[in-house]
């Protein structure tokens, strides 16, 4: 089995992509985020051999892209099947060259040759199925792809396709839908790239999530806006610092306005997290942010009753978004017990995470709980 390395994505795939399976990424034209396959190549570079079938860009460009993702694969574990050079009449330095890029049979021959050389534990990536369909005649191309998929299934390799969803005829799209074990759409929703898992025939889940692709980090499930709030001195800044990969301190937007910002990168999630004070004066700012946030982390000072009361108000204020409460300063001697805090926050009966932000205890856990909840919420409808 190969994996994506993203906790939730792998969960949706029922653990990952099993041997012998084919997966199609159907990508809306005009999207920037088309390098999903590179992420999966990188994630599994140690585990399997990789054959990259290049039909829209030169092998040189493929290597360049791999560099951008810090993707180093040992020579014997990687090969490009070059379907590009012959197309534009350029010489190729590759071992595996498709001499007749208008003939799917030529692709098959070269791919089977490369597969034989590299063995069964191989991941094959097609950079553009749509382009091959355009070059080789749609029907004939798909027949060839079916033969390749069958071979993959027989020898237990893995195969991924990028497919740009140009307005093909319905009949063609329908045929494509039935040809692959898994189908994932990538499209824009508003300005955010959204991934939709449409079909996974090995007991996966139908699900969707926003995503981004970072270089060199790779693919991440993206959460555009999480708010961290709470009473004065509850430890918001310490908490935010503790979970952030990158932290940007107070940005002065005026005498009384302080917004902190952190980027969190954890278990395949990437989130933009904003810290906003929860006390009275900041109410307008909080209200403004609340409407568009995907989730809220409320930090409270376990040693301070007024802080807990403020947390209770905030919980109420954000009742329409996924929330988690962080009971901070649990390492202090005068900290109230979790039971007592729970009682004081009644009727709130959601997650309360025991934490000591200064020691980095419970912080990532709180983030993860919230991120999971946000994804659940997104997938309710």
């Amino acid at each position, binding site marked *: 089995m190969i994996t994506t390395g993203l906790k939730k994505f792998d969960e949706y795939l029922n653990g990952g992509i099993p041997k012998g399976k084919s997966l199609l990424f159907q990508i809306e*034209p*005009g999207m920037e985020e088309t390098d999903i396959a590179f992420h999966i190549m990188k994630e599994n570079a140690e585990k399997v051999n990789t054959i990259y079938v290049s039909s829209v860009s*030169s092998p040189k460009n493929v290597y360049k892209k791999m560099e951008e993702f810090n993707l180093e694969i040992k020579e014997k574990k990687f090969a490009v099947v070059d379907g590009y050079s012959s197309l534009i009449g350029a010489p190729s330095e590759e071992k595996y060259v498709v001499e007749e890029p208008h003939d799917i049979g030529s692709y098959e021959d070269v791919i089977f040759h490369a597969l034989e050389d590299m063995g069964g534990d191989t991941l094959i990536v097609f950079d553009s199925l749509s382009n091959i369909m355009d070059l080789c005649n749609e029907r004939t191309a798909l027949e060839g792809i079916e033969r390749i998929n069958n071979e993959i299934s027989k020898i237990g390799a893995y195969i991924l396709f990028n497919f740009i969803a140009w*307005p093909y005829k319905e009949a063609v799209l329908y045929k494509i839908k039935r040809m692959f074990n898994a189908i994932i759409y990538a499209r824009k929703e508003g300005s955010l790239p959204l991934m939709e898992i449409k079909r996974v025939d090995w007991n996966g889940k139908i699900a969707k999530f926003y995503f981004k692709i970072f270089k060199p980090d790779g693919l991440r499930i993206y959460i555009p806006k999480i708010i961290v709030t709470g009473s004065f001195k509850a430890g918001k800044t310490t908490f935010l610092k503790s979970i952030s990969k990158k932290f940007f301190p107070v940005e002065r937007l005026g005498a009384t306005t302080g917004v902190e910002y952190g980027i969190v990168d954890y278990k395949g999630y990437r989130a933009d997290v904003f810290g906003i004070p929860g006390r009275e004066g900041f109410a307008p700012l909080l209200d403004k942010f609340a409407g568009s946030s995907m989730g809220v982390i409320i930090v409270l000072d376990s040693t301070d009753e007024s802080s807990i009361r403020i947390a209770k108000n905030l919980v109420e204020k954000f009742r329409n978004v996924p929330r988690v409460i962080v009971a901070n300063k649990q390492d202090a001697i005068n900290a109230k017990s979790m039971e007592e805090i729970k009682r004081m926050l009644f009727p709130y009966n959601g997650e309360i995470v025991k934490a000591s932000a200064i020691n980095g205890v419970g912080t990532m856990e709180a983030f993860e709980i919230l991120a999971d909840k946000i994804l659940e919420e997104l997938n309710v409808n």
Partner: protein
Amino acid sequence: MLIKTGIDRLDELLKGGVPFRSNVLIYANPFIGKDILMKKIATAGLENNEGVIFVLTDKSFGELKEEMTKVMPSFTDYESKGMIRYIDVYSPTVELKEKSEWATYVESPVNRERIAYSILQAHKEMEVEKHRLIFDSISTLIVYSDAKAVFRFLQVLSGTCKRMNTTSFFSMTRGMHEEIEVQTIKHLMDGVIELREYEARYQIRVQGCGEAVSRHWIDYLLEENEIRLTGAFRMGRVA
């Protein structure tokens, strides 16, 4: 709303110009004025404060810039104002790369996906209300792939362009394609401006493109940087 092509008598023929946000095919034999017409259209766009996006498959953006500056000395001023973008699909194939903040490279004409993306990005970057897209040429795209694939690409692209307040002009070379391919592409356009050489004369004709005084072939003279319509088309003057 109509926008000017920059050739006065052609605009007269079109009763003022081509409809804003339409897409127009410039279909012509080689060397009989297609390049001049495309440059005129670009010039008229800039003079009308429209941003201009060039997609180039047959020359580098450096060459185009040089040619444009010859016919429009203020061209570089518009460039430095951020009103011009080049999507250079030519230079990478010949490994000839010049740097410019206004130019984006697409590795090859096969990569239509990347071309579409770059056009979209160019639109987003430019701070103007209206645009013109000068796509020269779709013939090259067809040669590297096939007409149906290019048709699908144009279908997506023309939708994008309309949304982005863009009037688009696509060039296609007569004689390079089979009739069915030409019809496939024409089918997608709001209008066609055709140039041909006929019995030792140069002629122009408009189809679609909103209203026109005449739909017949009109004679024109080809000068160094000018197309001069000499044939009569005014109502009342036509015999």
